[in-house]
């Protein structure tokens, strides 16, 4: 059992959720998303982000629009769709339940009085 492997397994499940939440907060382009996640302590390679975003977009969770930029090529600004919002809500519920359960499972058992 590799610690890296387990860690990445954990991250994998979470990543989409975090990305969606970043976008939920406001329309964002990949550069922004990477910065937000990084500042939250969840560093992610941009090369990982792009395929995820595309997948979510293909699954109709996200939509985007092009915005011209003076400092480079036009940017894709992503936002949640209705479906995406629904999906996010589900994920949030799952996360809440899961995190509560896990926290309970790892906290030391109170000694029987």
């Amino acid at each position, binding site marked *: 059992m590799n610690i890296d492997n387990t860690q990445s397994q954990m991250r994998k499940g979470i990543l989409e959720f975090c990305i969606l939440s970043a976008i939920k907060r406001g329309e964002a382009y990949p550069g922004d998303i990477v910065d937000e996640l990084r500042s939250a302590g969840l560093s992610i390679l941009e090369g990982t982000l792009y*395929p995820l975003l595309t997948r979510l977009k293909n699954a109709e969770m996200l939509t985007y629009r092009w915005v011209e930029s003076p400092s*480079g090529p036009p940017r894709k600004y992503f936002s949640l769709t209705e479906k995406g919002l629904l999906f996010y809500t589900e994920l949030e519920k799952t996360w809440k339940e899961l995190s509560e359960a896990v926290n309970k499972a790892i906290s030391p058992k109170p000694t029987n009085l």
Partner: protein
Amino acid sequence: MKKIITINLSGQILSIEEIAFEQLQAYIATLRQFFDREEGREEIINDIEGRIAELMNEKIKKGSPCITEADVQILIAQMGSPEALAQEGVAEEKNQSGAESAATEENTRTKAPEPRKLYRDRNNMIIGGVASGLAAYLGIDPTIVRALLVLLAFSSFGLILFGYVLIWIIFPFASVEPYKGKRFYRDPDNKVLGGVAGGLAAYFDKSVKTIRLIFLAPLLLQVFFSILNWTDDDFTFLLFNLSFGSLVGFSFIMYITLWIILPKAITPYQKMEMRGEKIDLASIQKQVRQGAEQFKEKVSSWGKEVEAVANELPGKAEKVVGEVHQQVQEKFSGKDRTLGGSILYAIGLLIKVFFAFFFGILAFSLMVSLLAVFFVGVVTWPYQAFIWGNNTQQLLAWAAVILFVLVPLLGFIIWLIRRILGYKKKNAVLRYSFFSLWTVGWIIMFLFVSTMGKEFSTREQIVTTVPISVADPATIHLTVSQPAIMYSNKIPWIHIEGEEKGWDLTKDSLKLSALVIETTISPDSSFHLELIRSATGRNSQQALQRAEALGYTVNTMSNLIQVSNKADTGMIVDLPSHYSIAAKDKYRAQQVKLVVKIPVGKTISFDESIKEKLTLGELEVRLNKGRLREVDWNNADFPYEYGVIYKMMPDGMLRPINEATSPGAL
């Protein structure tokens, strides 16, 4: 010192070190491979490129003159090297189509099925994914399966398409792991026409020359054998045409089909796939570098060729090429591919191609005519008896034919084959021997022609008087009662449908119906008939012999006729329809001439059979002091009408009796 180039990345114009650019290219190529199984791979790559362009732009804005190797390394690290991305482990297993929704539904992750089941490949489908599914099942390149399908479709009258549809219906979709092995491409670096042979060679690890030869073999063989079928042997003709005719067509269709189906290996990545090389960052870099070097080489070697051409072409041509050369030098001094440079390169190439084509056609037509001469010689071999005077001549003739005709032909074929196989080395020995043999051939040909000319050098004639059996006829009537001579089809290789009148040729004799008829005034009051037989030879004796050998017996018989309401005796002069030339006498411009001398006041008439059965004209034999004689047969229009009675006038002219009896009338 580093080289800086300018690139356009997602619409941003950036200056970047060449090495850095190559690294960037290689990185993107590995990303492509990495995202191979993703839906929307292109979109992802575009997004990443755009992001990279943005980051680079920022760097430039901050004051860097250009993007360096170090910058690219940082960027790669930031975006994520393929190893790092693999570790994050997000891309690999997931593979969902846009039509399905994501995780809330049943997990539709389908790993590649066990190797032994046949599925259709969803990701790699052109029509229904059948070909790629089959390919994955068999473990070969999908392009091969497609090529086979197309070819089989042709030969099975489309039945194979039924099979295709069946598989389409029966077998389900799956996401099959894409084929990562050796792929079947066309090779643009190794092409004469479309790179098909090159691609085949790369895939099967055979030499290109072999493949090219295989493609061309049916055509070459067919040309060779169809020439040979001049022997007119029906069986051989059929056999060779059957076997090689369809092979040529097949090979042609194969080539064209492959050209259409096979994709061209353009990017270095594809080229490596074509050769089956291991694909990783290092080998991609190597590819890109090699490509650049190859181009530089091509340019410099072409520059040298242009130099050589400039030296060869004389006069104005040299100046023009020199100018082009100069411009090319200028353009290519920096060894960069500007648009102008490419155009000049193309123009130079076109000029070369044009000249090569032109001379090729010239040489080829020369070859064909020589070939024709050769085969005329071969074909008349059984009848050589009619032509050669003696054995020396025959020998000379054959030597001339072989050296003069066969040698260049052989040379041409060998040159062609060497050209196809791509031998660049000029084999001096071969060329010298070829040319010396050919020169000898010229000399012998010359000798031969001159000896043949001597055969016709002396002309002799024999004058015989034809006995007239009728005493003092009032008129004579020229006719031919013997049947006309016709080609009896005795010679197997000359076959004439219908009736060919006027001559016959057999192994032993040549029969001619050519006759010269001359009418003139008689010196006395009687009719006279003279037969003049002539022939040529090396000397007088030969000529006389030949003239004597011409058999032509004119018969005369009496005939009761009406001349001007007076019963009188006339004479019928019966001419044979032909004379024979025996094989041993050979054809030596023999001629038979009949001179009819008509006394004044007497009449003559001509029967239509003369026109039908004889060929009238005049044989012109021009004698020069030199060697060449000219022998010409001119078909003359007989000046007299048939069935009309002509009277000899005191002035020596024959006039129709209507005219004669009523002077002044026309």
